[in-house]
């Protein structure tokens, strides 16, 4: 059998395969160059970029939990201008699509970041509406349909790049937020961001994290993420980038079968810097073993009932 076709299209962007980094777990790409050939990736998704520099949260910022970790980095980044000047050139040089994760404190801030990122080398924007630190009028964007819809529409207007809206799992009904993003004009969705969690040092009677709470990621959350991708795929007709605890091709296939067109690897990059390479190889292998010509044939191919 000839080599299976792993290429997919997300919001008009062609990827050589469906495997990308999850925002915030892969820095600005170059950090992992000693461990992984970046040019094999489907895409690189950057750490969140904001209008102004952000210093981030006080330490400790990470803590291991059973099969997962909590993080409260606090959107530390050098700001969009420095990103474009210092980080983007090297990223662009890798030769795979670069998706820039953006965040802000207000619709206005998102819009200005999006405008500034309409430059060569940015393939798409991923709108981080789901970071627990991002709120307007006391509401997190990502847990409110109306805010999500307005924000999406504003970013779509601001920049001609495809807009991927990244959804929060900390909601009662993720499909209604997904629909709001779709109605706002999103070109794709990515999910899930982290679940809000907390861990306590019982000897010192203090939270382990400087920020008290943090975002839970890693294999622990995979069953929740797969369920949400399954729900959203049935509810909304947009391509989905699935993520949450993916460590290998089998995990990635759970998301693809549930309805994700592409997948992102986050926390497991820390554990295994070559995890994405293994996922890509494993997907090709799975296709070969099962006589699947195109990976897209597996998207949403789960049989229920």
């Amino acid at each position: 059998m000839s080599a299976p076709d792993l290429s997919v299209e997300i919001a008009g962007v062609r990827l050589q395969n469906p495997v990308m980094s999850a925002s915030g777990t892969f820095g600005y790409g170059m950090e992992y160059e000693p461990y992984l050939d970046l040019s094999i990736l489907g895409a690189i998704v950057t750490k969140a970029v904001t209008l102004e520099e952000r210093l981030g949260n006080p330490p400790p910022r990470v803590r291991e939990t059973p099969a997962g970790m909590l993080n409260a980095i606090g959107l530390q980044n050098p700001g969009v201008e420095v990103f474009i000047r210092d980080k983007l050139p090297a990223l662009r040089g890798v030769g795979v699509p670069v998706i820039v994760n953006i965040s802000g404190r207000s619709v206005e801030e998102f819009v200005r970041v999006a405008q500034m990122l309409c430059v060569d080398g940015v393939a798409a924007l991923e709108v981080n509406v789901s970071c627990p630190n991002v709120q307007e009028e006391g509401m997190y964007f990502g847990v409110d349909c109306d805010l999500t819809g307005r924000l999406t529409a504003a970013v779509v207007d601001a920049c001609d790049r495809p807009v991927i809206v990244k959804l929060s799992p900390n909601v009662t009904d993720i499909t209604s937020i997904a629909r709001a993003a779709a109605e706002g004009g999103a070109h794709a969705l990515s999910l899930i961001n982290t679940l809000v969690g907390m861990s306590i040092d019982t000897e010192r009677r203090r939270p382990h994290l400087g920020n008290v709470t943090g975002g839970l990621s890693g294999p622990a959350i995979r069953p929740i993420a797969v369920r949400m991708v399954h729900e959203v795929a049935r509810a909304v007709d947009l391509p989905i980038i699935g993520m949450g605890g993916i460590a290998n091709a089998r995990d990635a296939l759970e998301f693809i079968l549930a309805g994700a067109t592409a997948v992102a690897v986050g926390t497991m990059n820390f554990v295994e810097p070559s995890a994405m390479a293994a996922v890509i190889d494993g997907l090709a292998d799975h296709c070969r073993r099962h006589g699947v010509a195109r990976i897209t044939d597996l998207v949403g191919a789960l049989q229920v009932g």
Partner: protein
Amino acid sequence: MARALATLMLREEVAPGHYLLHTDCPEVAEASAPGQFVHLRVGDGTDPLLRRPFSVMLAQPATGEVQLLVRAVGRGTEIIATHQAGTRYDLLGPLGNGWGAPAGEANVLLVAGGVGVAPLIFLADHLRSAHPRPYVRALFGGGTQDALVCWTEFAARCEEFTAVTEDGSAGDQGLVTDALAPEIERSRPDMVYACGPDAMLAVVAGICAQAEVPCQVSMEQWMGCGVGACLGCAVPATAGGYVRVCTEGPVFGAEEIDWERMVGP
């Protein structure tokens, strides 16, 4: 920095709950500078999930041996404490920036607390080979005698060596930091190198600043990636914001760290 496999040749319990791992890892032995660390995976599953950072205690390019000193404090290190010769470790390293060279003649003072001794042993070893006439003084502190782990290896590489324990079970009684100001006064080192708990380092930094002696510290912080990608290992910087222990550190000039904002892990 690179990916390597290390094979455990011998695990020695050098003090209760403290293990010296003699590993065979030619790449890391070759490439390591004193003060650098390796980010080691314990097992191949999710328990524990993340890698664990350990300072290189000694690296022998000629034989390929890399020594790590591990104190069993939790899940990962307790698993390591059961490992038998032949165990293979997947590791990233050497990582981070090691100790900077002393100004002048290597008239230096090393201040170690507990397992913080590991990167200082490597440093002392290195100073002896890199400098014509090194004069290495060391203060080594711990709660009790048992915490003065590998002290013979340490002392063997120093011209002067003082042990301090909180309970007086070995050396002088007190805190290692109590002994520091008089020692600086006496020996006027060109550089103080310190590694140990945050609280100790903060006091060391303060004393050195006061005495106007340059000081380098090796910091610890919880790590995600170990390679600069996650921004998890931040410590507060005097310049504002944060610096990464894994990338800008683990060794910093004591003046680079904002000790007031430093919260222990």
